[in-house]
């Protein structure tokens, strides 16, 4: 593992001397990182508002966002593009990026497995299948209706893969967890195909959905997703301190007073809410959580109180950038953000494997 900056802050009073100076320096370094990431989100969001089939200057974007439209038809068109197309997808990219980033860091913390990712462990596939099933069975058109099924599916798949693997003493072979996740994903994909073969209408909805896009999603869905992401983030905040303890091993954590069952349950709930909300709104996006968790760890070290916020912000930046790349590379078509993330994330993952960053047992 990359143990960059392994110095973790000790709870309780910090003694004076060189250690105190070191801790202060580390904290400053981390705060600066957060500020830089927040700024990066703003820049990426601005680019996301400006770039597209119809390129806009930043002045036009500003005008479209805030100015009174008046009767000028050209200005009206820009306002329409900015407010109904660009703003929703930018907001959704930020919300979903934060959700998947935080979920990725959380799931790595709870499984103590550096290969964990909500996509690789089949959680996104669970949400996907539930959504397709809901569309098929109840004829839902509006994501507001099927968002609940996404949670249900995410929770079910997550419980199977993550819950069953942490049976017994938990913390099993990282490879087995990934293989289990892949198996569940293959199973769910086959079931999804069965639905699609039975009903051609679902097939059309399904293929769009499967690509994982932040575009063309209405405000109603974004608000609901954002609401659940906020609840998930609050649970995450509650959960954060105990993840550090859990990573010392269950025995040590118990001895230090952590309630392991409670902490794992809260963590699982948070992961389900975050991954479920993001998947319900955008469709399955794999590798984002894994990528940001590793990038964030590079800067923060293994302290989850810092790693998780970093991962969230980084997730938003990367999803925004991937969405913009998708608009640029396949003109006049678009490459869905989920596809761009996979095309970037998979080689990243392979590079980590090749560099030997994953422990075997």
């Amino acid at each position, binding site marked *: 593992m990359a143990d960059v900056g392994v110095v973790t802050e000790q709870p309780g009073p910090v003694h004076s001397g060189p250690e105190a100076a070191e801790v202060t320096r580390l904290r400053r370094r981390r705060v600066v990182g957060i500020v830089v990431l927040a700024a990066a989100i703003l820049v990426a969001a601005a680019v996301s508002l400006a770039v597209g089939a119809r390129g806009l200057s930043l002045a036009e974007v500003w005008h479209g966002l805030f100015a009174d439209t008046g009767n000028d038809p050209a200005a009206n068109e820009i306002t329409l593009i900015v407010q109904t197309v660009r703003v929703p997808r930018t907001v959704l990219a930020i919300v979903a990026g934060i959700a998947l980033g935080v979920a990725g860091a959380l799931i790595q913390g709870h499984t103590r497995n550096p290969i964990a990712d909500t996509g690789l462990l089949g959680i996104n596939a669970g949400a996907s299948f539930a959504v397709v099933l809901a569309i098929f069975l109840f004829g839902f058109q509006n994501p507001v209706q099927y968002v609940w099924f996404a949670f249900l599916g995410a929770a079910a798949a997550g419980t199977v893969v993550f819950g*069953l693997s942490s*049976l017994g003493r938990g913390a099993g072979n990282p490879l*087995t967890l990934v293989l289990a996740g892949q198996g569940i994903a293959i199973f769910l994909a086959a079931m999804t195909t069965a639905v699609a073969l039975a009903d051609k209408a679902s*097939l*059309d909805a399904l*293929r769009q959905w499967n690509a994982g896009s932040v575009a063309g999603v209405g405000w109603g869905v974004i608000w609901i997703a954002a609401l659940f992401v906020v609840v998930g983030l609050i649970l995450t905040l509650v959960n954060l301190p105990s993840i550090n303890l859990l990573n010392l091993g269950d025995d040590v954590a118990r001895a230090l007073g952590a309630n392991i069952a409670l902490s794992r349950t809260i963590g699982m709930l948070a992961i389900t809410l975050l991954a479920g909300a993001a998947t319900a709104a955008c469709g399955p996006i794999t590798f984002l959580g894994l990528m940001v968790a590793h990038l964030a760890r590079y800067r923060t070290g293994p302290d989850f109180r810092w790693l998780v916020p970093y991962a969230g912000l980084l997730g938003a930046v990367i999803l925004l950038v991937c969405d913009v790349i998708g608009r640029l590379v396949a003109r006049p078509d678009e490459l869905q953000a989920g596809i761009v993330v996979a095309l970037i994330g998979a080689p990243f993952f392979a590079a980590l494997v*090749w560099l030997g960053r994953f422990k075997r047992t």
Partner: protein
Amino acid sequence: MIDDLERDTTADVPPGLRVGRLSLVWRPWGVLVSVLLLAATFLLFCLSIGLGDFQIGLPQVISTIFGQGDRLDTFVIMDLRMPRALVGLITGFALGIAGALTQSIARNPLASPDVLGITWGASAVAVFLVTVTGGAASTITNTIGLPAAALIGGLGTGLLVYFLAWRRGIDGFRLILIGVSVSAVMEAITTWLLVTADIRDVARAQVWLVGSLEERSWHEVWIALWCTVALVTVVLAVAFHLKPMHFGDDVASGLGIRLALVRAILLLCAVLLAGVAVSAAGPIPFVALIAPQVAMRLLRSPTPPLLAAGVLGALLLLGADLVARTVLPISLPVGIVTAMIGGPFLVYLLVRANLRRDA
């Protein structure tokens, strides 16, 4: 570490069987189970041929297979039903052996060629040829045909995974993770092809996302048969070196096994067998995962047994196809039935592996 291969097998030493330089351990139980499995497979094969819109009794099927049937039976059986059943038989056999090899090399009971990139590579190429019409795509389809192109796609991806995972030798851990990542890239490409394609082509392409035995011809039977026979011959010739590898790399090289070479040959054979299966029947999930594990339990063998895994794969695929054709209310591709069996089985393996580790 969960490892079904490291089970304690300190039973009293069974008697040996020696023919010239070859020596085998005589395991009556294993032989008995294998014979029963073979008989069951033959029975299911005949049953699968007999059942359908035009029912043919089991005795007639058997006599027709051996050239004693009347003209109608011969037409229905030899021209219509036999290719489908044979493709199922051969593909299942190939998948079972490929799975046993992969699990032995990765030393993990959950490993299967499904994650080595072959499946998604073949799917990506097939979906590309189905959805993109005109230009180079039609030329390829017209000259070598869709199954051959899918085979090349699957094998190309499998080899890519192999070379990317090579770093002073191959190990199972790196191989699988690289396979997962290359599969993800192929899946992303497939998804994009599906999004941009015409909806009618998408429906046709679905068959290449889940395996099916429908509308197979003798042409496919012969290709699959010869490829499988050739590959299995190579596997059996090298397989004697497989057993010591279960004791770990150090012990195996201490016993004089040329690890890198043996592993490379067997893995290549696994990839090729899985590729042959995909090109013949599309990506049929889980057969390669289940067959070796069930065979291991039935034979009470400490390691995935090769031939029994193959026979069990054939049995499983024929059975699944029979269920898909006759029991289910709507006609579904066989791949969906194997997935329905495979999902719960995977959960079972997972639970069991965890509980054992705890014990």
